[in-house]
């Protein structure tokens, strides 16, 4: 990152809050480092009267970034109480991004689950076109994120396929976990895969992709749920001799398998 302070947050005003789904909100925040953010990177977000949490960036516009956040813990519950106009703190961006240059010009399969679409959203916009396939699943139709963007993506040629674990009367699409959208034809027609979502979803998706013939060094995942300090110091995200927040959070599956071998506990 730049010479901007990596230790001290800058004040960031909430410009807009959007309810994307029950328990999931997008916050549009002012941020001077907006033009340094690369797809897959994260920022440290300071929540008033609490502490900082690492959050991946789901959108960038001039002078602002967007963070799409699920309310799951103490800090995010407090964050959901801050209204538009409220002041938060931001520092970053941090971490190894998705390998955009490697993926450019290749046929890319993005598999996202639930709020895992947020860390891939910038990448999807970057690669948007006929060479991109996006398989996206959520627990139910109301939890599908960024629904207003699907049409535009399809217009650009993106092969977008949706699924939900359990549908309702209005749902006419596929029902089942996201791996039910995978088949050997889909996998073999792509050069690379990008996977983001809950750990168990990433584990089974990556496993299925390998079984269907995609090499482990052509599958990329994000281990961002491990991160805490974001600058490789606090130690919480250490696996073997790697620090997920600074060496990652994006890794190839081949790297993850090597980490798993020397890891105490679980990687996924």
């Amino acid at each position, binding site marked *: 990152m730049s010479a901007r302070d*990596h*230790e*001290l*947050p*800058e*004040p960031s005003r909430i410009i807009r809050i959007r309810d994307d789904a029950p328990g999931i909100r997008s916050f549009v925040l002012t941020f001077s480092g907006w033009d340094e953010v690369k797809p897959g990177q994260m920022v440290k977000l*300071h929540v*008033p*009267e*609490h*502490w*900082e*949490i690492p959050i991946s960036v789901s959108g960038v516009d001039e002078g602002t970034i967007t963070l799409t956040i699920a309310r*799951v*813990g103490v*800090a*995010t519950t407090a964050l959901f109480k801050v209204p538009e106009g409220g*002041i938060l*703190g931001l520092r970053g961006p941090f971490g190894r991004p998705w390998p955009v240059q490697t993926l450019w010009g290749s046929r890319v399969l993005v598999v996202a689950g639930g709020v895992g679409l947020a860390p891939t959203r910038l990448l999807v916009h970057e690669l948007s076109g006929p060479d991109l396939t996006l398989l996206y699943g959520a627990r139910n139709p109301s939890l599908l994120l960024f629904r207003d963007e699907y049409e535009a993506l399809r217009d650009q040629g993106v092969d977008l396929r949706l699924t939900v674990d359990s549908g309702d009367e209005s749902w006419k699409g596929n029902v089942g976990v996201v791996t039910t959208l995978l088949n050997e034809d889909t996998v073999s027609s792509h050069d690379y895969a990008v996977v983001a979502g809950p*750990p168990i979803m990433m584990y089974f998706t990556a496993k299925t992709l390998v079984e269907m013939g995609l090499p482990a060094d052509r599958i990329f995942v994000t281990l961002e*749920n*491990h991160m*805490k*300090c974001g*600058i*490789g*110091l*606090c*130690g*919480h995200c*250490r696996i*073997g*001799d790697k*620090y997920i927040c*600074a060496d990652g959070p994006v890794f190839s599956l081949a790297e993850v398998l090597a980490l798993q071998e*020397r890891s*105490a*506990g*679980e*990687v996924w």
Partner: protein
Amino acid sequence: MRGAKKLSWQDIVSALKALENEGYEVLSPKKNRWGDWLPERWIPDEAPEGFLNYYFPFLKEAVFPTEEPLFFLHGDRFLPYDPDSRKRAFFCARPCDATALAYTDHFFMGRFFPDSRYRARRRNLFVIVMACQVPCPKSFCTAAKAGPWARKGFDIQIYPCREGWLAEALTSRGAELISPYADADRDDISRARRELERGFPEEVHISRHQVKDAELNEWLGLRCFRCGACVWLCPTCTCYNQSQFGKDGVKREQDPCLFEGYHRLAGGASLRPTQAERMDFRYECKFGVGACVGCGRCSVGCIGYAAMEAYFERKGSRTT
């Protein structure tokens, strides 16, 4: 090494006085009335007779406090809390702690993002190591290459010898401090090292590639009381957590990896839900990453017999 010198006790006293004149607060081990050694303001001609080492790693504490406020929101700006970076000189620091300091130097200043708070304090820290003549209880510093003399992490290292003292400098500011004194032969330093090593048998074998031993981890995990003593006492443990400080401030505090909460993710999931896995994580760090200096403090402080001493004895690698 930047020079070998012969010193008398009076030379050492005058060097410490020179440091005081440069604005350093010179700290030396002093036993309190309960028998604990603490770093206190140095008093000339008061030698720390019988000092082995501090129970608490004060050298680490000087650069990385157990708890410190980081920043706070003031109006619409975030402001840092100033780190306590007054000039301090530790006289009679021990080789294991200096070695640990070299490790934390690399960790905080030589990797992804330098830690400005650590760096501010480290720049103003002068370390005078006194090589060890007697091993500490439960220590294995020779095997960890951190004793009885230090290879790194100091400004000056002093060795006892028959004629008085020998000194070597590792940094330019150390070399400058001892430059007025008589030169010694480098062989004298080598002899002094060999002499000290005779009293420090290498009792354990440390491999940087420890084979994972699930049964050992489970045994250690069952014995661990999750008190965190081994972490508070370890001169190389640097893991920390952030939490609220005051109304709008944030502090960092050391966070023992043997606590369940250390491994908890947002939403309550845990990457290492069992104490055996947390033990594995700790020993992987201490040996795999190379963060153990063999000071033995964790074994002295452990109430459950789950620290290094137990690790080696259970592993069967102790040779004496």
